[in-house]
């Protein structure tokens, strides 16, 4: 996990070739010059895997972060406020959760990709980050629901009532009294969401609605090298696939660890 994070940070310095350097012979087997071999266009798979780490971390990480921030706000407010607001927003969230994340992401991306924006306009800039935004959007309701249920539990505690009888403002109670107790559940949820987000980014790349070629996206790399010529250069597919698997497992193990730490202290 840490290893991948370092890769993402220092990737450009480590990679022996640039991501789209096609100067090498195509479909070269792994060797000392090309540790993971080269793909059908003669690009170095090793460099592309390293460079791909950054985009997947950025997209999944920032996407999750946005989802966590918005989800926390929504969850805290509807949880504390209760009543009609909770009913309406809560049901909306429930309805949203019934849809599979990947399907929702595909639909939204499909729409965005089919609209042409003027290059350089802000719409185009947003469309460029569409995967990131979709990740955020898909996970907001999930995070909100987790935060809401912990808020519901904590708001009945007596220290919250003690704050109410001091006449504290709603915002103070939500952020100063309730929020700290939500944090453990939130951190566990965030790390879990992150691992799902990585997988989702890779899946979207694979399905061709994520990053566009020639970006060194792991999912896209798997998809590009999957064609009939797979037998000729299995390494071009196997290494990015392995990278995805290792990262997802790594993040999952980390979130398990986080959970255990918080359960112990909580």
């Amino acid at each position: 996990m840490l290893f991948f994070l370092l890769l993402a940070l220092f990737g450009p310095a480590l990679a022996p070739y640039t991501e789209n350097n096609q100067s090498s012979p195509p479909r070269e087997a792994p060797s000392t010059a090309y540790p993971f071999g080269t793909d059908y266009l003669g690009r170095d798979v090793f460099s592309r895997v390293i460079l791909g780490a950054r985009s997947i971390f950025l997209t999944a990480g920032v996407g999750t972060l946005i989802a966590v921030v918005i989800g926390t706000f929504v969850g805290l407010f509807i949880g504390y406020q209760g009543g009609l607001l909770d009913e309406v927003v809560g049901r909306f969230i429930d309805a949203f959760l019934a849809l599979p994340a990947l399907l929702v992401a595909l639909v939204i991306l499909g729409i965005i990709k089919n609209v042409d924006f003027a290059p350089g306009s802000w719409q185009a800039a947003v469309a460029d980050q569409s995967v990131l935004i979709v990740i955020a959007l898909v996970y907001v309701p999930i995070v909100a629901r987790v935060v809401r249920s912990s808020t519901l539990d904590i708001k009945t505690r007596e220290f919250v009532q003690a704050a109410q009888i001091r006449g504290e403002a709603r915002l103070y109670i939500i952020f100063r009294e309730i929020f700290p107790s939500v944090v453990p559940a939130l951190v566990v949820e965030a790390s879990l969401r992150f691992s799902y987000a990585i997988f989702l980014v890779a899946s979207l790349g694979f399905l061709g609605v994520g990053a566009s070629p020639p970006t060194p996206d792991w999912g896209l790399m798997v998809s590009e090298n999957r064609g009939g010529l797979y037998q000729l250069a299995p390494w071009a597919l196997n290494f990015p696939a392995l990278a995805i698997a290792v990262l997802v497992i790594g993040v999952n193990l980390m979130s398990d660890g986080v959970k255990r730490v918080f359960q112990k202290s909580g």
Partner: protein
Amino acid sequence: MSETPGTVLHVANLGISYRVGKQWIRAVREFQIEVKAGQIYGVVGESGSGKSTAATGIMRYLAANGRTEPGSVIELLGQDLAARSARAMQDVWGRCMNMVPQDPAAALNPSIRVGEQVAEIVRRHEKVDRDTARARVVAMLRRVRLADPETIFDRFPHQLSGGMQQRVVIAMALITSPQLLILDEPTTALDVTTEAVILDLVRDLIAAEGAGAVYVTHNLGVVAQLCERVVVMYAGEIMEDAAAADLFARPLHPYTVGLLKSVPRLGQTKREMALQTIPGRPPSLTELPEGCVYAPRCPLAIEICQTKPPLETPAAGRLVRCHRWQEIAAGAVEVAYEDGGGAIASAGLEARSPLLHAAEMTKHFAVSRSLIEVLQGVTPTPVRAVDDVSLHIQKGRTYGLVGESGSGKTTLARMIIGLENPTDGSIDLLGVDLAPTVRTRGREMLAKLQMVFQNPQNSLNPYLTVGQAIRRPLMTLRGMARAEADHEVERLLTAVNLRPEYAARYPGELSGGEKQRVAIARAFASDPALIICDEPVSALDVSVQAAVLNLLARLQEEHDTAYLFIAHDLAVVGYLADYIAVMYLGEIFEVGYGSDLFAPPYHPYTEALVSAIPVADPTHQSERIRLSEDVPSPRNLPTGCRFHTRCPRKIGAICEDEAPPWRDDGDGHYIRCHIPLPELTALQKSLLPDHERDA
């Protein structure tokens, strides 16, 4: 059953350890007990004393990380259990020994009919067919005095009240006629009137069955009323073991003396004497003191107490673990604990100026409608939690509010503090009409009313330090600057007997009693005129409870703050309160000064409450007045007098048809009953123990 009382259970040198991390923590050390047939043996101690661990250890039913140490002897009717495997124990459990746990709701499977659950045990151990098993169960349910056992058989646990569930669990434990019954705080979660009924039941059944029983409890009153012999535990060791009569009359261990003196007796008040308190707190099991485990808190500790005292036998059938028991027995030394500053002599009974007047307070909770009800346009009857209750609180005085769970006392308090919006009623504080909820009340009014909550675990935010918790009301409600507030925090902490360093600690580092002191300091921070105390000591151990009660009494005297003190424990309310109201099903039935309330005439409900209290004196046998457990639903209240369905002194149709009138007994003592007061007085006996009556 055999006629000669033989030994049922023989336990010696029992040691129990728990593995926590890499360490083995020795929770129980050198425990011993000898239970005879037909005998109820009490095991008392505060939380963490190892009493429940010892009980589960005898059952060989420890958690996965627990073990019985080698050398332990557990013999049931001469059979050695200590060496048995868990598998071999299965034949013993259920057939020879059974356990009644504290929480009956957790012991019953919510999705199986209660009769089936009991029948299952009969079938498992006696291999009888369904019809025979059913007949046996119905007979057993009748023996635990469940009315209409045939119907109860087919009920699910959630359809029964807590008291009825506990009876089913007792039936379950006794149906196989075991030789040994272990009861682990079986009445702690129940109301005092229900507790009294269950205790009677246990006493009668054990006598009839001739089984031995081990009764684990923290309540000395229960022990005095129920048990033949008692063992007192502290920090995993036996402190004292004696026949109940001897233990209460002549305790030999300083800890036993402390426990006995720290519990307020019914009728005892803060004006007469402060409660004695045991200083400090029980040691952590990971860092036990070198010598006597009790030495750090013992007023008699001397140099020799740095070495471990042996368990000695001062007389036949008595054990004590103290170096100085001979001196205590001879009366050469007196076990004197701190008494928290002496009695509150200045607290008189004369009337003070009025502070708060709550008039005709009413709270009805709407019941959410089902879809069918919405379609039919039916509005379900609301839950009438509090109905038309008025109360006057005077400056600097304590207004006590007692009643069983569901009486509406907490709802009433929440309406006064402004956490619950009243359906009807008005509150007048120092001549100003109070807005209904905290949101709509001004800062000045908020500062005048504060609250201390029941559960110290939840009343402090775990992520804020003690200093932050107390500083906040100082800054928001009294407008203090940071530096000034910090200074005031120190003063407040000192006032509640905590060192100023506590300001930097988090609640997780504090014991229950310390947390409750912090909560009290926080309530006093805004210099309120009235503090609502909702069961502030019911979650605390007795030795800690006494210190908190003393503290509340002293702070009241110093600050001239009034309390609305809510508790289910009549003795605790009686100790602290000047004026007491008794609530039942959302209405007040009797009000009066404490001293009047505990002598006839009583309201029949108060009379039942008083008689249900287990008195910590085995020689005292109160006249038993027992109420049925069928508390009417607050959605469907009885007509006329709300108490008539359970009233042992019901006089006739008038109780069912007409609301009873308030009758004046003079001196502010009012009773709401159809029976005229002189008749009530003639019917009732004083229920206080003799020596209390003379005082």
